[in-house]
Each structure stands twice: as C-alpha cells, then as structure tokens.
C-alpha cells in the first residue's frame, strides 16, 4: 500500500522522528542494561567514573576474572543457538511429550527443565571446556573483558537470596491463582448481568482501585498482630497469628487486585458473544454448566493477560509485603531494602545491584514471551474504560 503523495513526509520530519525514537529507546533501556553490566564487575569498576572503565572492567580483569575474545565468541554462539532452539524446537517437544489435558503444566515443566539445562551448560560446562582452550590459543585466549559472577554467588549463596526468591514465587503464584479463580467468576457474572447492582459493584471497585495501599495496611496491621487473641474464641488454642503468614499476604494482595481483575475480565467476557452461552442454556445447561463447558474453553487469552498483571502486582509489591511479613518469610523486593541498611562497603552495593538484576531478569523474560498479551491487556483496559 503506497501512501498518497500529500500524506508523504518530508525528509526532515522523518529524520527527527527517527532520532527521537532512537533517543527514547536508549533512555528506556539504558538504566536497566547499565545495572546489568555493573552487577558483573568488581566494586572498583562498577562505580568507576568513566563509562568505558565500567564496560571493560580493568580492575576486574586484574583480579583474574575476565573473558577472552574466544570466550565471547563461543559464549555468544551458544547463547544464540540456545535461544533459537527454545523458540523453534521446544514448543514441539512440549507438545509431543505432554498429555493433552495438561499443556500448561507441560509448559511450566519444560521451561524449568530448559532453564536448569541452560544454567548447567552455560555456567558449568562452558567454563570447564574453555579453560584449557584459552590456555593453548595464545593472544585470542587472553582476557580482554573483565567479568565476574562473584556477586551473584554471594547474593544467592551466602545471603540465601533463594529463600526470598521462593517466598516471592509462593506469594506470586498464590496471588495469580486465587485472584484469577475468584475474578473470572465475578467478571463473567458482571459481564452477563445488566442490572443496576452490577453497575454499582463496578463503581465500588473503581473507588477501591484508587485507595492507597498504606490506608488498607493501617487497617490490617493491628488486627494481624493480635489475631491469635482475636480469633481464639472461634478457633480455640490453635488460632493463628496472621502477621508474617504468606497466605495472609496472598489474601490481602488478591483483594487489592480484585478491582482491576474484575474490570479487565469483564471487558474480555463482554467481547465473547452472549449467543454462545445462550445456545448452551437453550440446550439445557445451567449458568454454571454453560460457563464451564462453553465459556471456559474460549476465555484463556483474556485470563492469561489478566494473570500477567496479577503476577506483576504480586511480584512487584513492596509496601504490603514489607509491613505484613517478618524477616524469615520476606519476599525479594523488600529484602533488597535490607541491603541499603547494611550497605556500608562498595561490595555490599554491588551485591545489591546483583540482587536487583536477579529480580529484574524474570520480568525481562516475561516481556519477551508475553509481549503481545501485555499490549492487548493494556489496550483492552483503555477501550472499555
């Protein structure tokens, strides 16, 4: 399709719009990629004043941690082929080896297996192989780029960041499953009911959406801390203290997330033609049967999109988890705040950077895999308002 001549743009306009776009991309990606680079350097390099020193890492190289040209070439090749394999062959393998009903579980399993295999090959096998190759290949084998993974080892090993990671996963998984289960039912009900009550519920949800979370936490905190005394008349001696319990935080985050979830799922269900479930009802299904047999098979795109946003809420939350969880059950994001208080040496600072990059990496993968769903979710919210 060719644009009409009158709509064609002058060269200057195209150039300035292109420059602006390039500038924005640089601005958008720079802080994130920069902290990723910093996390691989020794403290002296990471906080060096000249950008070139941060990238090449002379002090890191002087410590004996570095990559040779050969390392870089082989590493990039392995990276390229493993990513290509993940996008071309992995889906087929998952489909062949997975029993038909459990495709989601199969994907989760496949992804975890792939991640473990990748880490083993990339960080276990490759250095072992490249060590002897470097030593015999002369100038190509001498390190040119300082790079060290010691901060990651310190963060995940010594500081036991994996505990926080597991807590984060627990909270996030809980938030996503519960809020989708509850939200799908409510979204469907709201989409198919044109009553005034449904309208008022949606308005109420909008008001709840605007509440600052600290207002709500101010309500939970005294109750959660004293909950074993408050609940004793009902549950007897075994009454739990809700403060510090991951499942209590899951319940709180699900409730906070509900307004958004039901608005979004309602707009998805409104796009599914009502004739579909009416036909099922004519054939003698109850509302629930119609929902289960007719709507559930076609609702997954909307549910996945909404699930992504629930995931982000649970994963990114700082305020609720930092106030309602104690130190043993802390999730990743509040745990990183613990680094500031300790942060006395520059090593601590770079470890905090490494922890921050560890938190960001899963999100990066998430955008890579689900970009289309995220965009459609954002626009779906806007179109329906």
């Amino acid at each position: 399709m060719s644009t009409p001549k009158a709509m064609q743009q002058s060269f200057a306009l195209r150039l300035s719009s292109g420059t602006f776009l390039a500038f924005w991309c640089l601005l958008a990606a720079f802080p994130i990629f920069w902290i990723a680079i910093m996390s691989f350097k020794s403290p002296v390099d990471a906080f060096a004043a000249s950008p070139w020193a941060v990238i090449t890492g002379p002090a890191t190289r002087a410590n004996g941690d570095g990559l040779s040209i050969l390392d870089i070439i082989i590493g990039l090749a392995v990276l390229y082929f493993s990513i290509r394999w993940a996008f071309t062959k992995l889906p087929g393998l998952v489909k062949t080896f997975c029993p038909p009903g459990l495709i989601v579980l199969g994907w989760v399993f496949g992804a975890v297996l792939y991640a473990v295999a990748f880490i083993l090959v990339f960080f276990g096998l490759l250095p072992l192989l490249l060590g002897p190759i470097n030593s015999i290949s002369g100038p190509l084998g001498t390190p040119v780029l300082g790079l060290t993974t010691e901060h990651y080892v310190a963060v995940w090993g010594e500081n036991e960041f994996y505990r926080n990671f597991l807590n984060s996963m627990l909270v996030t998984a809980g938030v996503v499953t519960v809020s989708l289960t509850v939200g799908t039912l409510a979204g469907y009900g709201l989409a198919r009911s044109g009553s005034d009550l449904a309208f008022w519920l949606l308005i109420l949800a909008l008001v709840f959406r605007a509440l600052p979370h600290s207002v709500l936490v101010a309500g939970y905190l005294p109750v959660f801390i004293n909950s074993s005394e408050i609940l004793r008349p009902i549950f007897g001696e075994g009454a739990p203290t809700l403060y510090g319990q991951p499942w209590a935080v899951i319940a709180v985050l699900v409730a906070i997330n509900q307004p958004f979830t039901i608005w979004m799922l309602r707009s998805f269900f409104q796009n599914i033609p009502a004739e579909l479930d009416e036909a099922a009802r004519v054939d003698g299904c109850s509302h629930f049967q119609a929902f289960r047999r007719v709507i559930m098979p076609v609702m997954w795109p909307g549910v996945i999109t909404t699930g992504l946003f629930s995931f982000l809420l649970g994963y990114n939350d700082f305020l609720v988890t930092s106030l309602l969880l104690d130190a043993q059950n802390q999730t990743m994001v509040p745990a990183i705040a613990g680094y500031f208080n300790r942060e006395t040496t520059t090593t601590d600072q770079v470890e905090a950077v490494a922890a921050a990059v560890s938190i960001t990496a899963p999100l990066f993968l998430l955008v890579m895999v689900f970009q289309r769903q995220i965009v459609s979710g954002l626009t779906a919210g806007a179109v329906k308002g």
Partner: protein
Amino acid sequence: MKFKTFAAFVGPSVFMMLLFIAAPLVSVFIQSFQVTQPILQQVEVETCTPGFLTQTCTTEMKTVPVLDENGKTITETRWVGLQSYKNVLQMDKVWEGVSNGSWNDIMQIDFWRALRFTLSFTLLTLPLVIGVGLAIALAVNNATRAIRGPIIFISLLPFIITPVIGSLSIYWLFVGDGILTAMMERWTGTNISMFAQAWTIELLMYFYRVWHVAPFAFVIFYAGLQTVNMDTLESAVIDGASRWERLRHVIVPHLMPLIIFIALIHLMDCYRVFEEIVGFRSQAHVISLQWLTYDFMTPDDAGNRAISRASASAMLTMIGIVFLLILPLRRTWRDHKGSAH
C-alpha cells in the same frame, strides 16, 4: 441472569473486597480516634549497691508497664477524639507559620511537606506523561513496520520493571560519582551531588515517573492511532490543513477519551507515590503522603508502631482520593442515567 446466580458468581470476589478493603477502611476510621497504650504504674524501687560498712540504698519512683500473668504488658485503648489528627496536622504551628508569612515553617511539618510533594508530583508529571507518550506513539506510527515490534519490546521494559528496582537503577547512575554525575561534573566543571538537596532528588523522581509511565500511555495511544479515520485525515489534507493542524484538530480529538482515561489512572497512581521514596532513599529531604503513613506503621527503635497516627494520616490521605474521584464518578453516573432512559 437471576439474582441468585449473579450472587453466586460475584459472591467470592465481593466477599474478599468487603473483608479486605471495606472492613479495614472502617477499622482505620475507628482507630484514628483511639490510642492504644500500655498501662503504666508508678512503683517505688529500692536499689542497693554494696558499699563499705553498709550498703548504699536509694529509693526512687519508677514508671513501669503493668504486666499480666503471662508477663505481657497490658494495653488499654482510649478514645481521644481528634487528638491523633491534631498530632499529624499540627495546626497551631501552621497558623504560626501563616501569621509569620513563612512558608518554610509550614514545610517543617511532615504532613504538609508530604502533601506539597504529592500534589506537585501528581500535577507536574501528568502533562509530561501524556506528552511523551503521545510523541512516542506518533514516532512509532511513523517508523517502518519491521522495527515496531522491537521498539515496543524495549519501551515495555521501564513499565514492567519493579518500581523500587526501577528507581534504584536510576539512583545508582547518579549516586556519589556515578557515571552520569561524573559526566555532568565534567561538562559544568563544578562538584555536583544529586542526593544532597531536595530539588535535585525531586527532579530525578519526576524523571523516573515519566520514564516508568510513558510506555503505558504510549501503548494506549498507539492502539488509538490505528483507528484514526483515514478519510477525515485525507479530507483535512485536501482542505489544506498542515501537519500540525491535522494533529491538533483530527488526531487529538480522536484520542481524547484515551487521554482522559490515562489522566485518571495516572492521577490515582501518582497520588499514592511511594516506591520512589524508598528507591531514592529521600526520606530526609522529600516524603509523600503514603510514605508518611508507612513510616508511622514501621516499628521505631523501641519497637512501637504509631498505629493511631498512621490511621489519622491514612484518613487524611483518603480525603484527597474523594476530591480526585468526584468528577469522574459524577460523569459516569450521568452517563449511566443517560443510558438507562
């Protein structure tokens, strides 16, 4: 759909919202008029230190908390009326500041300081977010199709990143002699420290928020641009409208509902600005309303949480939300009534 089925579908969700959103609101409202303190009593304590010939004994009156049989302190809850609000607002000092005509005196009080920052943050970032978002959307719409996907991918990164981490990543670029501070120092030839005074921190916070939210505006505007009526655009061209006039009279009116939507979401989210304070570690210079409540709730050195003051400041924050939502809610209500007729 019958009411019973509707209730069964919506029930669990409404129950959760009532239990975890509406009930806490009520309890915060009640707490803000109460104070819970340990009951104290005056006890005469005799302390003796061994001395030559006789022990030296002194008796003094000490204030100690009353313990119950399990050794826990007994607390009592009293109604104190508006005392907590007074503690947060400190109106007497405000009036003093007003009568002296001294803005700085008022800004010494945490609540007013937080309110000032929250409002200026919300109102200043709003036009920036809409402007930058629209500019990116127009530029991407101009770009060749092949590079749009990667650009959207990169643009989504600032939006999706954990807010605390996002602000930290900018903080690390500027902290101490971070590379960007070093670069500015080389250009200007002066010694710059970005985190020593309030206004530079605030600038970085505005920048962070625009960086974080502009992609959201961009994606929505970009979707809106795909539905612009080409016939209207062409007739505008035939009528001799310049590019700028077309943008102003055709495209922006077409995007107006989306602009209002983004403005509303942005006002809601900005009003509860919080993560920036944590990420930039700006407590000493700049605080926000939500951070103030958070700070009251975190245990102090003695392990006490100022729950009643937190509740009072939370309720005061709520008043702002009411103002924020009155206009959109009135509009929705009118639309709803209009559609019913």
